[in-house]
């Protein structure tokens, strides 16, 4: 089994290997051993010899058998991988916390290396006293810890016109969920004696060449925005903005400025490139919505899915997925096996948390027949995740951003799954 794992790195090879095994068991109820299992009856090398010492791996990576659980990109999406995006392997993860090493990346001029001693953060504009902080200064303010999801506004954006990419990683993987440690933006604004009036704006920009400037209304800036320097307990990764990034809970990922270098209090929005030419949503009549910051409630079945087929045949099956809402807590997730004709309510692994991923499970018995799997999230505001048809009716086909439609996987009798659209 362990020897096979290396050859099983492509999806097709994986399917070939596992489906054969699945068919043999299908419908058989509890399997019966054909003979004694040598993995049990023979002494295995790992049970006889010795493993690695504690000095072998000062900082560990996943074991080699998990080498296919990686970020992937779609080369034809962008002109160049430096200004591009990759996708979290959500089909292969469980729980809710995304490990940093496989959490999606989006850069506009590449992931830069910025050392802590070279880091400066400026607060200027409508403030009593413009200030410059070093990294060490930031560590002396009172800290907070929060878990939040970060979703790119373009997540599922390739699916507006139709089912296109075959895998939850590609359709829904522009998302990650981490526990952040940092200082509230409010604390830094107050430190500089900023004008905190409700009609003011806070402009934030990064230290990279793109600068990726975004304007945030004061109300949000004072509410829950965090200037973060740790994620999942350790320093941010380079690709996520080391040493300091902005966390804007529930709002589109583009506003979570990485390598944060400047915070300017202003009378109005800058209307930067990222908030006019990009991250605005074109409607059917050609007009465009702007300032569409909040990520509405959304969910997806992560397994079974095209990259995570059913390999065990009929019988007990765990259907699982993720749900989230930029408006607050997820309160309920329903799952349909027949393309939305009937629904049953899934079990939330934990009570929904504010602006964080929620894991759901439907522990079910699969009869081995075809399924059209869907999930539908509801949040604490009463919002119900819409179908693609409902979204199109309001917005047309060219919005690019904020596609939070119900996703359908066609699970076939052999356990394979495909991204489809249904009537």
């Amino acid at each position, binding site marked *: 089994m362990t020897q096979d794992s290396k050859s099983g790195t492509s999806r097709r090879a994986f399917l070939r290997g596992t489906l054969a095994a699945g068919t043999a068991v299908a419908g058989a109820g509890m399997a019966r051993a054909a003979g004694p299992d040598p993995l049990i009856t023979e002494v295995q090398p790992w049970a006889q010899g010795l493993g690695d010492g504690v000095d072998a791996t000062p900082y560990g990576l996943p074991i080699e058998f998990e080498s296919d659980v990686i970020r992937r990109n779609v080369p034809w999406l962008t002109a160049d991988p430096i200004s591009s995006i990759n996708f979290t392997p959500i089909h292969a993860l469980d729980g809710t916390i995304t490990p940093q090493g496989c959490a999606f990346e989006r850069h506009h001029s590449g992931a830069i290396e910025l050392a802590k001693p070279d880091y400066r953060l400026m607060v200027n504009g409508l403030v009593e006293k413009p200030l410059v902080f070093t990294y060490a200064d930031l560590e002396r303010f009172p800290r907070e810890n929060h878990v939040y999801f970060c979703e790119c506004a373009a997540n599922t954006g390739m699916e507006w016109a139709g089912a296109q990419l075959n895998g939850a990683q590609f359709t829904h993987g522009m998302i990650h969920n981490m526990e952040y440690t940092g200082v509230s933006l409010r604390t830094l604004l107050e430190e500089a004696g900023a004008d905190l009036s409700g009609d003011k704006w806070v402009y934030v920009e990064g230290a990279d060449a793109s600068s990726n400037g975004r304007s945030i209304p004061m109300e949000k800036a004072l509410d829950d925005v965090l200037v973060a320097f740790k994620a999942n307990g350790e320093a941010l990764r380079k690709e996520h903005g080391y040493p300091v990034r902005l966390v804007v809970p529930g709002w589109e990922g583009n506003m979570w400025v990485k390598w944060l270098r400047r915070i300017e209090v202003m009378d109005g929005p800058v209307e*930067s490139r990222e908030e006019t030419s990009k991250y605005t949503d074109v409607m059917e009549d050609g007009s465009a919505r702007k300032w569409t910051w909040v990520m509405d409630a959304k969910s997806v079945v992560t397994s079974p899915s095209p990259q995570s087929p059913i390999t065990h045949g009929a019988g007990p099956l765990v259907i699982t997925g993720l749900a989230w809402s930029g408006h607050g807590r997820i309160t309920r997730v329903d799952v349909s096996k*027949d393309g939305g004709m009937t629904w049953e309510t899934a079990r939330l692994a934990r009570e929904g948390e504010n602006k964080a991923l929620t894991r759901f499970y439907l522990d079910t018995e699969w009869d081995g027949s075809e399924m059209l799997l869907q999930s539908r999230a509801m949040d604490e505001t009463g919002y*119900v995740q819409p179908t693609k048809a409902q979204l199109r009716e309001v917005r047309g086909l060219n919005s690019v951003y904020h596609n939070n439609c119900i996703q359908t996987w066609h699970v076939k009798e052999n356990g394979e799954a495909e991204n489809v659209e249904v009537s």
Partner: protein
Amino acid sequence: MSKFLNLATAGVLIVMAAPAFAESYGLGREALPEEIAAWDLDVSPDGTGLPPGSGSVEDGEAIFAEACGACHGVFAEGVGNWPKLAGGDGTLANEDPVKTVGSYWPYLSTTFDYVHRSMPFGNAQSLTADEVYAITAYILYSNFIVEDDFVLSNDNFTEVEMPNADGFFVDDRAETEYPIWSGEPCMQNCKDSVEITMRATVLDVTPEETAEEAAPAAEEAAAEPAPEAAVEETAAVDPELAAAGEKVFRKCSACHQVGEGAKNRAGPQLNGIVGRDIGGVDGFRYSGTMADHGGVWDEATLAAFLADPRGTFKGTKMAFAGLKKEDDVAAVIAYLKDASANAN
């Protein structure tokens, strides 16, 4: 005793010196005007933040061809997947809207601001304010918004009318969507039937999955012995010239990589370019001209190509206008040799 007193006095002084406003921790230091001026470059729609200066369409055309044309096309029409900056007028309600500065961008300040701070790709903040005015003027001209004799400056900046200025409205989902998509959803008999109307596998655009393979491949490459010629050439490279060439190379770096781990991008990787077969990098899709040319890149051929790419190789995909100064050509070749040698 006296030491203790001194320390205590110092402590009192520090507390007194802390800023007077509430909730202050006294952390950080005051930003200097020069520091704010260096970083606070943003330009707002009303022109706030514009530096003094001006630039003409005519100057802009030449600067654009050199600094921007490689990716955006000399007429701002876009190359490959790189953004189109001109055209698309009246397409926003079409099946495939073309969103350019002319057809979509609501404010001219956004163009100036972005070019000034973030362009050219790989060499940001290398343009003067006048050059940015000129480039902005040329982009306006390429969208038929101004005439060819137009000069843009901080004085007339806000007089330019952008065609799609009124094309945007503030997020109205709370009124137009949330009331429809709320309440208790249907659980049983929600539809009479369900048909599959579209399948992703029909398109077949999903990348084939492979596990991380880059590391072993890089090791193999490193294991190959370095060609001796490269070592000899290194000895001949003038380090100062190579350092100058590294700066020139920023113009190339949007499309080309050189050095350890260099990969093909919009252009082929350039390791060992001097002495390499013309059109010889595996896995790069060359133009017919380059693929069929034959021969090797000697320094003279490379120098001619860098000075005038499209004149030297008619039909080349490289949209770069060329290096006007001979010194720059010599410097960048020295840098390419140096960086190639270090890659081995």
